């Protein structure tokens, strides 16, 4: 009887709680855990990037290097083992190219991207810093709402890079912004520290904003403005494919603008070889021309009459 009462009262309390909190009560808790791991053969830069990202994600679980190139579906089991519903997999190829896989584990989707222009936090031209485990503000480009595949990618980023509310080890303040922008068919990822500074001349703008948002936002110290300082890491992602399943399943998007780095390198090599080939060809042509004109190697003309002194007295 007591238990029944307990459950009843509990449910009632829950309901009232939900009503009190408004929308929050009806929301499902955002539970995300990200398995972060790399393949074998990553360079130090890739490794540092992975460490940086792992440091920023308190809901992340770093694992040892995954030792298989072909059996990627094993990652699903691995994620299940660690109770993760997201996988961020760094696949290194040829010891130089980095592919990043973002996957929702039980049943997809999976996005594979090519990562370029990596800059890690270790680099000294980033001057910002932030607490470990604070929840970032995720800033998405408006372009993410325009294409379905970008929508999917945005959702995955939201799950993986956004620290869920009340995550373990997360800290209660907000001191950094992660920016995702789309430009040139690529996704540019940046991470900035939010610094509160004394407000300068741009007061009118802020005021306009506050009037737009309503006067309620006046609480807190309004005399500060925010400025951004980059923390790093920074990298550029080119989406390659999106699979419907998790590390498997049909491909539902393929980027036609993506050119594999192997292709780029081979083209470069070919262009280089082409230069030599052209030169060799020219040389051969020149020789042929001279031969047809009857010009010898030493530059004397060989006449066909056979009256040349050398031929006469040979």
């Amino acid at each position, binding site marked *: 009887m007591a238990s029944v009462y307990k459950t009843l009262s509990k449910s009632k309390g829950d309901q009232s709680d939900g009503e009190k909190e408004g929308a929050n009560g009806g929301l499902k808790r955002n539970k995300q855990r990200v398995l972060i791991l790399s393949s074998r053969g990553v360079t130090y830069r890739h490794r540092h990037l992975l460490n940086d990202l792992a440091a920023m994600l308190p809901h992340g679980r770093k694992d040892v290097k995954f030792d298989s190139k072909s059996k990627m579906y094993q990652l699903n089991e691995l994620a299940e083992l660690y109770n993760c519903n997201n996988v961020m997999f760094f696949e290194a190829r040829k010891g130089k190219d980095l592919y990043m896989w973002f996957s929702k584990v039980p049943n997809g989707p999976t996005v594979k991207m090519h990562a370029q222009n990596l800059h890690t936090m270790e680099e000294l031209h980033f001057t910002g810093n*932030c607490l470990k485990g604070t929840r970032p503000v995720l800033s998405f480009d408006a372009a993410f709402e325009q294409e379905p595949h970008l929508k999917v990618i945005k959702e995955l980023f939201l799950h993986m890079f956004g620290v869920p509310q009340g995550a373990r080890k997360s800290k209660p303040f907000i001191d950094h912004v992660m920016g995702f*922008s789309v*430009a040139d068919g690529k996704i540019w990822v940046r991470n900035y520290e939010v610094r509160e500074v004394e407000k300068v001349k741009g007061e009118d703008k802020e005021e306009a904003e506050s009037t737009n948002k309503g006067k309620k936002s006046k609480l807190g110290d309004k005399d*500060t403005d925010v400025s951004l300082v980059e923390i790093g890491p920074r990298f550029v992602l080119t989406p390659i494919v999106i699979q419907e399943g998790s590390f498997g399943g049909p491909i539902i998007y393929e980027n036609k603008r993506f050119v594999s780095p192997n292709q780029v390198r081979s083209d470069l090599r070919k262009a280089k070889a082409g230069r030599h080939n052209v030169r060799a060809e020219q040389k051969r042509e020149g020789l042929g021309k001279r031969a047809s004109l009857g010009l010898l190697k030493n530059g004397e003309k060989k006449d066909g009459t056979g009256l040349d002194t050398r031929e006469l007295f040979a």
Partner: protein
Amino acid sequence: MAKKTAPRIASKDKKATDTKPKKQQKAAEPAVEKLFEENEDEWEDESDGEATKPTSKKAKGKKSKKAAIAPVEDESSDESEGGHGFDLDLARLDESDSDSEMEDADGNEDSESEDDDEEEEIDVDDLSIGNSSDEEEIAATTRVRETINNKDALLAALKRIQLDTSSSVPFAYHQSVISVTPTADAITSIDDDLARELAFMNQSLEAARRARTLLRKEGVPFTRPTDYFAETVRSDETMDKVKAKLIEEASSKKASAEARKLRDLKKFGKQVQVAKQQERAKQKRETLEKISELKKKRKEGASSALGATEADDIFDVAVDNELKSAGKKRSFSAGEHGNPNAKRQKKDTKYGFGGKKKHLKSNDATSSADIGGFSAKRMKSGGGAGPKKPFKAPRLGKARRKAGAGKR
């Protein structure tokens, strides 16, 4: 709720598109767009029953037009079916040892996907059999690289995982901000690093501002108090290095600026020096000219009347006058500096600059009669007032001095 409907819609949408041959996909894209719009509406109101009906009808219509491969699924196919399908899919994944699905985005991938799309409808058991032949066939047909953009499937996949980020949800739940304008618009050239980074930063800055106002409205702490210390993302060593680098940069900048200033000054100083030298040379030339002129005059006029010495004196005076009138600037004593101090004047009279120096130090009648410096007392006491000298033996004669030196 969303989860319930997701698999069903996914399968239907797939049917709608997958039954079409690949080449016709482009032509059929408007229809796909419509579908997409309706889907979007559905997310907005989140009522699955009403919204799914039009899409499913559409899908059905298409099915009837194109030869449907799969048996028509009932509209009331429940959640378990969808779930079952996925289980099977996963099982298949586990079974198939081939890495084909995980391969990179090469040409045969789209063929793969086509395979899979069809397979999902056909039967799970047929998969392993028909795989290889199909693959070859399609690989042959898709030599020309065609890319896939299956919008319905993408949206279905999105719907399956989507978090609610609408305005009804508290902002602190997701903390994501979508910019008002696409950032790409602000970037004129992707190779212009500065402009590009500025555009990215502006996007994030706008997001930070909006997030701050929203979070403050919700009463979520935003600013970290100054006395709140915790581990940071970047270690203290790194930050020290960063600081050192900044300092070094600033100091080097300062040093270079200073060096430049000095260089400029030097350049300017040199100019001044050159100008001065030129001026001096000019003056010298002028005076020499004047002297020669005077010499000429003297030779013409005064050679007959006056004696040689007298003429010389006159000449000197004349030269002095000339020089005084010409080079007033050059005279140090009474020039722009004014009169020098008394000490200098005295020294000038003593060592140079004015007056005769000959016999200056020798006595004359007055100096020899002057006994101002003589003190009888001092003479008697042997230096009473002056510094006391130690006793000094009188100087001996030369011979005795020499003898003494030899003894030593």
